[in-house]
C-alpha cells in the first residue's frame, strides 16, 4: 500500500470561477448543521466505546462464565443486552443522526431550519438511552430482544426520535433542488419507518401485550426491520452519496437504484419472521418470511452491481481515500451478508443455524462489517468539511481500518464456523449437550480475540477524532485553507 501520499495542500484544478452565492450556500449548509452533527458524532463515539466495553465483558464471559459473575448487575444476559442497546441505539442512531442528516441537509441544498431542535432531541435521546441501559443493568430488563430498555425510558426515546424524524421531513419539505437524489429516498424512508416500528412494537409487546405468540411475531417484525429499514437504508444512503461524491463520477445506473430501493422496501419488511422458523407460529407465516428473505437477493444484487460499477476502474483511488476504503468494504460486506442471510432463511439451512452462534456471526457481519464500516467512512468524509480541518494522523486511520477489518472478519468467520458445528451437533441427539458447549469454546475464545482487534480500531478512531476536535496542533499542522479550497484533492492520478 503506497505510503502516505504527497501533501495535499495545493489543490490541483485552479479555484474554479464559482460565483460566491452558490459557494456560500454550501458552506452555510455545512455550518448550519455543524453543531448538531458534531454533537451526535461525539455521543456516537462515546456509545461506541461504551458498547465495546460491554461487548468485551459479554464475549469474555461466554467462555469464562465465572468472570465478573458475583453480581447480578454483570450477569451475561444484562451485559449482552447493554451491549446491544449501546451499540444499536447509542452508536447506530447517533451516527445516523450525524452522517445521515448531514447528507440530507447537503442534498436538500438549503441550510437546515431549527438546528436547535436536533440538539434538544439528541440530548433527550442520549439521556433516555443512558437511563435505559442503566435500567437494563439494574435489572428492569424486559427480556424482549432489541426492546430491552425498560418502560420508563422508552417514551423519552420515542419522543426525541419523533422530533428528529419530523425535522428530517421538514428539511426535505423546504429543499431547494428539484431533484431528489436516491440517498434522500433512503433517508426519508428510514426516518419514517423507524418511529412507526418502534411505537408499534412498544405498544404491542410492552404496554398492551398482544396474546401469546403474536408478541414474538411483532418482536421479530420490529427487530429485523430495525436492521433492514433503519440501519440498512441509512448505510446505503451514505454509500450512494459518498461513492460517487469521492470518486467524482455519477452512480452507474440511477434506474437500478430505483429498483433496488422499492425492492428493499417491499421484501425486507416481511423477512423478519425468519427468526421464528421452526417456532410455534403457523407455517404460512414462516414460508412468507422465507420467501421474502430469499427475494431480498434482488435488491442486494441490484445495489451491489450499482456500487461496483461505480467503483470499477478507480480501485487505486478507493484504496487511497480513507472514506472509500471503509465505505467500499462496507458495500462489499452488504452483498456478502445479504446473500448469506438469504441462504440462512432456507429451511434446510435454518434447521442447523437457527439457534446457534452462526446467527450471532451473521448479525455482526451485517451490523458491523456493513453498517458500521460505512458509517466510519461517512465520519472520515464529513468531519473535515464540518471543522475545516484535516484528520491529524493517517497512520491512525490505517490502524483503525485494519483493526476493524481484521477484527470483524475473524469474528464472523469464527462464529459462523463454530455456530455451524454447534448446529450440526445439536441436531444429532446422540451428542450430549455439554459436549456441544465444549466444542464451541475455542470459537468463542476466537471471538474475544477479534473483539480486541475491534477495540484497537475503535480507540485509534476515537484518539484521531478527539485529537482533531480539540488539539490546536492539528490546525497548525494542516495550514490548509478553508473548507472549500482545502478539499484535499489528490493529484489527478
Amino acid at each position, binding site marked *: 500500500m503506497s505510503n502516505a501520499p504527497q501533501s495535499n495542500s495545493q489543490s490541483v484544478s485552479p479555484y474554479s470561477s464559482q460565483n460566491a452565492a452558490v459557494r456560500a450556500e454550501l458552506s452555510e449548509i455545512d455550518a448550519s448543521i455543524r453543531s448538531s452533527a458534531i454533537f451526535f458524532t461525539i455521543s456516537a463515539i462515546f456509545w461506541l466505546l461504551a458498547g465495546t466495553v460491554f461487548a468485551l465483558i459479554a464475549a469474555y464471559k461466554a467462555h469464562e462464565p465465572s468472570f465478573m459473575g458475583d453480581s447480578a448487575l454483570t450477569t451475561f444476559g444484562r451485559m449482552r443486552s447493554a451491549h446491544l442497546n449501546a451499540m444499536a441505539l447509542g452508536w447506530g442512531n447517533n451516527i445516523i443522526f450525524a452522517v445521515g442528516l448531514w447528507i440530507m441537509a447537503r442534498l436538500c441544498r438549503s441550510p437546515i431550519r431549527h438546528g436547535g431542535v436536533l440538539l434538544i432531541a439528541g440530548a433527550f435521546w442520549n439521556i433516555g438511552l443512558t437511563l435505559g441501559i442503566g435500567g437494563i443493568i439494574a435489572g428492569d430488563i424486559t427480556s424482549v*430482544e432489541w426492546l430491552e430498555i425498560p418502560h420508563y425510558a422508552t417514551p423519552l426515546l420515542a419522543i426525541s426520535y419523533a422530533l428528529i424524524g419530523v425535522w428530517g421531513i421538514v428539511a426535505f419539505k423546504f429543499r431547494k433542488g428539484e431533484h431528489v437524489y436516491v440517498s434522500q429516498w433512503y433517508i426519508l424512508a428510514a426516518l419514517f419507518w423507524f418511529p412507526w416500528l418502534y411505537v408499534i412494537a412498544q405498544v404491542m409487546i410492552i404496554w398492551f401485550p398482544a*396474546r401469546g405468540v403474536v*408478541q414474538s411475531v411483532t418482536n421479530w417484525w420490529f427487530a429485523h426491520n430495525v436492521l433492514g429499514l433503519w440501519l440498512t437504508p441509512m448505510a446505503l444512503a451514505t454509500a450512494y452519496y459518498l461513492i460517487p461524491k469521492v470518486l467524482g463520477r455519477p452512480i452507474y445506473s440511477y434506474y437500478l437504484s430505483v429498483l433496488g430501493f422499492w425492492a428493499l422496501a417491499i421484501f425486507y419488511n416481511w423477512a*423478519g419472521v425468519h427468526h421464528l422458523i421452526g417456532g410455534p407460529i403457523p407455517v404460512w407465516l414462516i414460508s412468507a418470511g422465507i420467501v421474502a428473505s430469499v427475494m431480498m437477493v434482488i435488491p442486494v444484487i441490484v445495489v451491489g452491481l450499482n456500487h461496483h460499477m461505480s467503483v470499477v476502474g478507480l480501485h487505486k483511488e478507493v484504496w487511497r481515500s480513507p472514506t472509500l476504503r471503509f465505505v467500499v468494504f462496507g458495500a462489499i460486506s452488504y452483498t456478502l451478508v445479504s446473500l448469506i442471510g438469504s441462504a440462512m432463511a432456507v429451511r434446510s439451512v435454518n434447521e442447523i443455524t437457527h439457534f446457534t452462534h452462526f446467527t450471532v456471526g451473521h448479525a455482526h457481519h451485517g451490523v458491523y462489517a456493513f453498517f458500521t464500516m460505512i458509517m466510519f467512512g461517512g465520519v472520515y468524509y464529513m468531519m473535515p468539511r464540518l471543522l475545516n480541518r484535516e484528520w491529524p494522523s493517517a497512520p491512525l486511520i490505517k490502524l483503525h481500518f485494519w483493526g476493524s477489518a481484521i477484527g470483524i472478519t475473524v469474528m464472523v468467520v469464527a462464529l459462523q464456523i463454530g455456530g455451524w458445528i454447534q448446529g450440526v451437533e445439536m441436531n444429532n441427539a446422540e451428542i450430549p449437550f455439554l459436549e456441544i458447549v465444549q466444542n464451541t469454546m475455542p470459537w468463542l475464545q476466537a471471538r474475544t480475540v477479534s473483539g480486541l482487534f475491534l477495540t484497537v480500531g475503535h480507540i485509534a478512531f476515537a484518539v484521531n477524532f478527539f485529537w482533531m476536535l480539540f488539539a490546536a496542533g492539528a490546525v497548525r499542522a494542516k495550514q490548509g485553507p478553508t473548507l472549500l479550497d482545502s478539499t484535499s484533492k489528490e493529484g489527478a492520478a
Partner: protein
Amino acid sequence: MKNLPLLFCGIFFALAFSFTGLILSSNIQLGSLTQTTETEDENGNPLEGEPLFPMQSVGLAQQGKQVYIEMGCIYCHTQQVRRAGFGADIDRNWGPRQSVARDYIMQDRVLLGTMRTGPDLMHVGGRPLNADWHHLHLYNPQITSKGSNMPPFAFLYETRKIDGEPSADALQFPPNSEYGPEGGYEVVPTRRAEALVEYLLSLKLNYSLPEAQIVE
C-alpha cells in the same frame, strides 16, 4: 421520483403491507385463541369436565418468571420445541411434542428466545431434575455440569453460619465438593432463587392440544 407525496405513499404502503400481512393477520388468526381440552368435540369446542390447557402459571412460579426475565436467561435459553424431523428437539427429550401458538396464550410475556447456548427449557419441569439439582446448578453450574459456560447465580443464594441445626432447605453439596461453603456455614436459597426454581419446575409440556397431539 421527485416529490414528497409519492415517495411518502410508497414508504407508508411498504410498511403497512407488512404490518397488515404479518402482525394484523397473525393477530386475527392467533390473537383470540383460548384454552381448550386435549381433544375437542366434532365442532371444535372443549369437552366438558376435562382440564383446560395451557394452564395459567400462578403464585411463586409467576414470580419466578420475573426473576427469569431479570436475569436475562432468554439470551442463552429458548422455550420452544421444534417439530420432529426439524432439529432433534424431541429426541433430546426437550419436549414430547412441538410447541404451538396456543401453548403461550396465557403468558403475559412470551419468552421464546433465539439462542441455545443452553438447552431448551420449554419442558424442563418434565425432566427428572428435582429442585435440589436446580438449586445446585444455579448456585454454580460447575457442580452439576462441569465445563458448562453458564454463569453462576450465587448472588441468588445466601451463605450464612449454621446456628445449631442446618436449615431444611440448605443446599446439599456433593461430598467434599470444592464449591461448597466452609465448615460451619450453609448455603440457603433466597426467595428469588426458590421462585426461579419453582418457575423452572412449572415449565411442562405434558399435555396435548387438538392441533398438537403427544405421540409416543
